[in-house]
């Protein structure tokens, strides 16, 4: 299985973001989105990938992009993990049917039953403009994402008002 490449329309999805709330890709229409698939919550290191991105959120937002993480962990697990790490962005539960969204992006490992460490930058039109598959044991960092965002033209604001960021975490 190989991950979806640049120019592909990002497959839509609707996943639980909290035990009683769902989030769809279509809600990000007109905005830029970083979709970060990762194997599992609770990596036993300080700077695990999601904690790292949590600290880089201001940089992502400065580049006019939102971030969501996706793993096969359930919504309750995500909630506990997000609380423990003080995360300020949404984690989506690709839990039922397990891994379906990860599979649709080509980012699922059948042998382990978890998502790959795969990164996608999706533009305001819902098209994948950058993707990267990291070896499962290597936290890819954020330099590739920021380079990709920097290569995009500035987003024009349609009505001059500042964009409303939904607090979904």
């Amino acid at each position, binding site marked *: 299985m190989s991950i979806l490449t640049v120019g592909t329309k990002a497959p839509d999805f609707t996943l639980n973001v909290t035990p009683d709330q769902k989030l769809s890709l279509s809600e990000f229409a007109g905005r830029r989105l970083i979709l970060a698939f990762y194997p599992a919550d609770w990596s036993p290191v300080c700077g695990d990938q999601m904690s790292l991105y949590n600290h880089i959120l201001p940089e992502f937002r400065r580049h006019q992009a939102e971030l969501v993480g996706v793993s096969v962990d359930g919504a309750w697990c995500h909630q506990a993990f997000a609380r423990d790490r003080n995360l300020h962005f949404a984690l989506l539960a690709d839990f039922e049917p397990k891994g379906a969204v990860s599979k649709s992006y080509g980012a699922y490992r059948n042998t382990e039953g978890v998502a790959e460490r795969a990164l996608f930058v999706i533009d305001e039109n819902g098209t994948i403009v950058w993707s990267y598959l990291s070896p499962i044991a*290597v936290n890819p960092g954020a*330099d590739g994402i920021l380079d990709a965002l920097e290569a995009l033209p500035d987003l024009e604001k349609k009505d001059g008002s500042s964009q409303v960021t939904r607090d979904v975490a």
Partner: protein
Amino acid sequence: MGRLKSPVTSRDHIQGSDNAIVTLVEYGDYQCPYCGAAQPIVKQIQARFAGKLRLVFRHFPLVEVHPLAQPSAETAEFAGSQGRFWPMHDAIYANQHQLSITRLVTLAANLHLSPIALRDALALGTYAGKVQADFIGGVRSGVNGTPTFFINGVRHDSPLGVMDLAAAIDQTILTDA
């Protein structure tokens, strides 16, 4: 990805000769236990490679999980402004298990630095910009946790982390020689 993009400059904290054939850049967080555990290994590496290696330390505080990482980094910079970066760096790691603002002020006093000046610098965020600049440079270079090491500009990616850092440096010396 994973290449050092911020070159080593005179603004950096450097131990070792500018002519060293290996530059080891560490991005670290004073409250991170893995960084604390890496500290004696880094010292061993410095002793072993001696004149062949220079060490650069840059800040990468993970403030959402380590509330004292930022004031600790600013305290090290405060000491650095008076030529005492490395003694403070070592003192903070040696006191990692009992870090607090009070402890940082005590460490300053122990190094004959003004506790009042340190409190002012922390309150005003005098060195916050320097710490932030390190952090952003690290992000752009692909720092992916703490500690992250770069050997001659290449990120050290290994499941063993710091444990096989010396072997990786040996390899770099062989390859680059």
